[in-house]
């Protein structure tokens, strides 16, 4: 009787999550997968085959873009971690009370405006007639206007900026839980800054590092606006290719195949990274 009741409660509580998962994630993906397996043989004539996937592997532009997206995203993740870690350490360990809250809020502020506006902000700063270029001319460092947009560095800047919060928040949370006396004990036993960072702080922060990196990597890989706007026509971002197939070419079959390849790629890289760092998803999320 009671177990029936609690079962019902459990199902009811789970229902919104299940509906969300099934309607918004599982169903579209099943549909997309089926679409990606269709090969167009004539008008309104289709056959089931892997032809769309074959297109990807036979066209160097496609898999070059694919590889480029992957390594740019990995680089963006690494860079975000490198910049985010000291920031998070400072917020979590070296500040108290009000300052801490203020700094934390300052990390949040950029997210009060939409991603589009934020990216346009960067364009205003970096374009040929933009703030940075004018400033350098004013200083006399350069003689003519300089274009800072439409290169990899601009993309990277945009990606790191967009992802920073998602790295800093999990890092601050895990570093906050590190007992100061552990760090002091490390120094007391003769540890140097470097050995304490390596042996005590980083192992403790590992769950935060892993979850931050996964989120940032996924966000970068799937980002569309930032690479297109800051990288321009030659940004060669894989999401751009997918967009083209769906919207410009109306080639939903190929677009779906690309979408699936992207899903596979991101899963594979996350899996490899977890294996390499000796972490597991359960361990990371369980903390």
């Amino acid at each position, binding site marked *: 009787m009671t177990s029936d009741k609690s079962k019902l409660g459990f199902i009811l509580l789970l229902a919104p999550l299940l509906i969300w998962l099934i309607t918004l994630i599982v169903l579209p993906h099943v549909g997309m997968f089926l679409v990606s397996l269709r090969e167009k043989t004539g008008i309104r004539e289709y056959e089931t085959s892997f032809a769309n996937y074959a297109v990807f592997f036979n066209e160097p532009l496609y898999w070059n873009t694919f590889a480029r997206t992957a390594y740019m995203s990995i680089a963006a993740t690494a860079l975000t971690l490198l910049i985010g870690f000291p920031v998070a350490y400072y917020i979590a360990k070296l500040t108290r009370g009000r300052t801490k809250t203020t700094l934390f809020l300052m990390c949040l502020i950029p997210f009060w405006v939409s991603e589009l506006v934020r990216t346009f902000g960067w364009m205003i700063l970096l374009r040929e007639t933009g703030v940075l270029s004018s400033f350098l001319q004013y200083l006399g460092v350069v003689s003519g206007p300089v274009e800072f947009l439409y290169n990899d560095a601009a993309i990277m800047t945009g990606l790191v900026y967009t992802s920073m919060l998602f790295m800093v928040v999990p890092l601050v949370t895990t570093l906050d839980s590190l*007992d100061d*006396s*552990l760090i*002091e*004990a*490390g*120094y*007391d*036993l*003769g*540890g*140097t800054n470097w*050995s304490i960072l390596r*042996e*005590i702080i980083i*192992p*403790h922060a590992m769950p935060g590092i892993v979850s931050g990196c996964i989120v940032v990597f996924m966000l970068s890989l799937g980002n569309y606006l930032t690479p297109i706007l800051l990288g321009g026509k030659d940004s060669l971002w894989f999401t751009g290719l997918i967009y083209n197939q769906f919207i410009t070419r109306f080639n939903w079959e190929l677009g779906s195949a690309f979408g699936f390849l992207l899903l596979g790629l991101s899963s594979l890289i996350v899996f490899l990274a977890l294996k390499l760092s000796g972490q597991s998803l359960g361990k990371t999320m369980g903390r």
Partner: protein
Amino acid sequence: MSDIPDLECRAVSKSYDDFQAVQDVSFSVPKGTFFSILGPSGCGKTTLLRMIAGFQNPTGGDLLIKGKSVLEVPPNKRPVSMVFQHLALFPMMNIGANVGFGLRQLGVNKTDIKAQVERVLERVGLGGVAERSVSSLSGGQKQRVAIARCMVLEPSVLLLDEPLGALDLKLREHMKVELKKLQSEFNTTFVYITHDQSEALVMSDQIAVMNKGAFEQIGTAKDLYYQPQTAFVAGFVGEANKYTAKVEAAAANGLHLVTRDGVHLRGVDTGDRLGQGDTAQVFVRPEAIRLSRKSADMDQMANTGAGQVESVLFNGANSQLILRDARTGSELNVALPQTAEFRDLTKGDQIHFGWEADQTRCYRQGT
């Protein structure tokens, strides 16, 4: 060589913005001594210890280890190790790695580290646990790992900040004996902080009593108990019945005092040179008070009285009586004598009591 103390503090002070946490503390600890700093919560013990370890800088005075000033030496270079209040074992490492941490910093090679770690773990009675995780140990075992982790570096001085505070009572009793044993085995100088007087009294060779940032008295446990030099020490170390009284007459052989309730007391001056009219604080230990059912037995005593048993706090050999003084209505704490005579005392019984003048220690009332 041997007369250079392992640790010496010279007028060490520490003040925060508007608050003096440690003032002019001076002491020296000879090699191999178990030195305790005993004081109530918030008196500045941790601050003092952290200055010795190097985590805080004194605002005045000098700190010497083996005769050399260490004020300029950062904590990771000081020849002292600290056992933290909550031990601060590294949960991300197994026990062997925890104990080996200090040796790794020194660049000792792996096989030597392994051997030394195993040896020190055996000495604390934990051989063969090196591969286990920290969380698999009991409270007392963690304690010993924390000590082993410091001792493997052979520090000149081991600092311990209330390391037994987190343990339950039973284990604490056990660890007291254990710690003392470890200290004499390693023959290392221990500086031990506690607010629990029984810990300090049982383990220490020397005890410093600290109050409000300053040392009140340094001495052996017996000194502190039988010859407390200040009213604070008399009240803090051991139990005592306390009176406030005015000096009626001061003679070479003792003082004659009268409490506000009109009770006459005879006591001894402890060196405060009390004179007629001074207000004094008077301390009498519970075990100094004799009991009898007949008032005649008390005739030779300098201080006598009668009262009613308020309650019997039975605790085996440490049983106590609370008496209510018939004259003043105030409570008096008396150790229950271990004789058959008083075994049947119960609440409401009338009893006579008395104690000698030289068990009545008088101090000048603090201003």
